[in-house]
């Protein structure tokens, strides 16, 4: 992080010299007063002589306080300027960091940089690991003109110096630089240039350019330092946007994988079962065994109903997938209401709608609740279900309790666990630092309890 550069730095050596200069000036002033008094000795009794003596002392005092006040004024001005710059930098950074879309972040970076340093034109180019221009975003140039200019610059000339060599550039007239390749047709004329590299930690490298400082012929050293500081924070915003983009892509990929697994474990298994049963029914009909065929057709219908229920639940689950700004409480509430309407099992919902979690934790918690309700539908023969989601003592606790058949968990064979999806539920809970507990008694229903740590409020 570049440090703030003072406008002029007072080194200890200079300070020592200034102190000595003060002593010499004071001694010189005393000598001058003495000399004047010596000259004025014959006139000291007259008013002219006294006036001249007083005027000499007054002039000395005036010089002394003039220097003191000028120094104070300069230091105050410098502090005010630095405060203004820090405030502007802070506001620009806040604005840039408020955005998560990479293209919008780049646009805000270039807009804020141009506003910060009062430049007419601004541009940011971002290149990837293969040195290809990933994005080239401008400000100060209309869309119409941008279209007439054609494809973005490829990095010849002065842009290449910044792009490939990572150098800062500051010049009053870029057209006079020998490295300049000139402008393409329709390009607006530009003179003063300030360009700094934007060093990101991600796969991108960027360069921020400003051209034509308003009202003043060129950018100052101070402008350059300001832009370097801004570029450092802009790089963090660009990295942040890139990671967010990656996260969204990964979340989509993960969801696709989950759907693929569900299709494989559910739909594909049932379709294979349907195929086998259909072959069996065909065989029974061929051998004139209609009772056997009817029994297998009933099993087929039951399997079809079950997979229909699974598919419907998956559709509700996908519709209730986390939406930015909506709490997990809202998502669970909406899902349970849809599920209730779907299967005709009465649900009592006690959900704290202010519970907010990370996107991944929300997804996992929703899936556990969905899996628990799927178990109720498939195995419990319940009439009522209680679904609760509440935040207490730094924990978020979700429970799904039914009044169905229940079972003895100790007698549940390990092989049967996958049928209830309990292993998957445990994996999901553990992936977000939580636990799942299953309590059931034959004839008294089943309760699934999920506990996960609440996110810290900071």
């Amino acid at each position: 992080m570049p440090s703030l550069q003072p406008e002029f730095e007072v080194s200890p050596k200079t300070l020592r010299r200034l102190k000595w200069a003060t002593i010499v000036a004071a001694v010189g002033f005393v000598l001058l007063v003495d000399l004047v008094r010596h000259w004025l000795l014959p006139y000291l009794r007259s008013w002219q002589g006294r006036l001249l003596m007083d005027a000499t002392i007054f002039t000395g005092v005036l010089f002394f306080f003039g220097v003191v006040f000028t120094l104070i004024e300069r230091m105050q001005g410098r502090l005010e300027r630095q405060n203004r710059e820090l405030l502007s930098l802070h506001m620009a950074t806040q604005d840039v960091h408020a955005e998560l879309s990479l293209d919008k972040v780049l646009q805000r970076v270039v807009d804020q940089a141009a506003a910060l340093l009062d430049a007419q034109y601004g541009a940011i180019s971002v290149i990837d690991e293969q040195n290809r221009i990933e994005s080239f975003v401008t400000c100060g140039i209309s869309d119409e003109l941008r279209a007439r200019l054609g494809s973005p610059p490829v990095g010849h000339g002065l842009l290449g110096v910044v792009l490939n060599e990572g150098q800062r550039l500051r010049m009053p007239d870029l057209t006079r630089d020998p490295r300049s390749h000139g402008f393409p047709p329709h390009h607006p004329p530009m003179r003063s240039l300030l360009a700094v590299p934007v060093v990101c930690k991600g796969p991108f490298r960027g360069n921020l350019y400003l051209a034509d400082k308003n009202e003043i012929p060129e950018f100052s050293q101070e402008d350059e330092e300001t832009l370097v500081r801004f570029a450092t924070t802009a790089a963090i915003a660009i990295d942040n946007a890139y990671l967010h983009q990656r996260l969204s892509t990964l979340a989509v990929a993960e969801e696709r994988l989950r759907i693929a697994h569900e299709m494989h474990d559910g739909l594909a298994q049932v379709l294979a079962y349907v195929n086998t049963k259909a072959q069996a029914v065909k065989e029974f009909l061929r051998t004139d065994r209609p009772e056997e065929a009817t029994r297998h057709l009933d099993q087929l219908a039951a399997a079809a109903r079950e997979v229909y229920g699974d598919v419907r639940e998956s559709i509700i689950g996908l519709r209730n997938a986390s939406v930015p700004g909506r709490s997990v409480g809202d998502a669970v509430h909406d899902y349970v209401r849809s599920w209730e309407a779907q299967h005709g099992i009465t649900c009592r919902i006690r959900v704290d709608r202010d519970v907010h979690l990370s996107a991944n934790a929300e997804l996992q918690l929703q899936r556990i609740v969905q899996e628990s309700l799927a178990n109720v539908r498939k195995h419990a023969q319940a009439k009522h279900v209680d679904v609760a989601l509440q935040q207490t003592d730094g924990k978020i606790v979700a429970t799904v309790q039914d009044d169905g058949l229940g079972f003895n968990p100790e007698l549940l064979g390990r092989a049967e666990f996958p049928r209830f999806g309990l292993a998957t539920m445990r994996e999901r809970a553990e992936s977000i630092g939580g636990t799942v507990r299953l309590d059931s008694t034959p004839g008294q229903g089943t309760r699934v309890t999920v506990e996960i740590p609440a996110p810290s409020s900071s």
Partner: protein
Amino acid sequence: MLPQMLKDFSNLAAWDRILRVLVGLAMLYLGWSDLVDGVWAIALVVFAWVPLLTGALGWCPIYSILGITTLRRPGSSKVR
């Protein structure tokens, strides 16, 4: 360092500085010549150094205290 500080502190335009040096030289000349004598001659010699010094430095303490400048500064980098 000091030249930079003087440049930063400067509040006199070139014409103002030239005028002050000329006035200072004129005061010195009058003070040393026979045109003025007595206490006024001493006053001219003593105070001739004020315009000479301020003209040479490009900085006037009265201007500084009153916030006056005859210098047209190029705008520094205004940060909005």
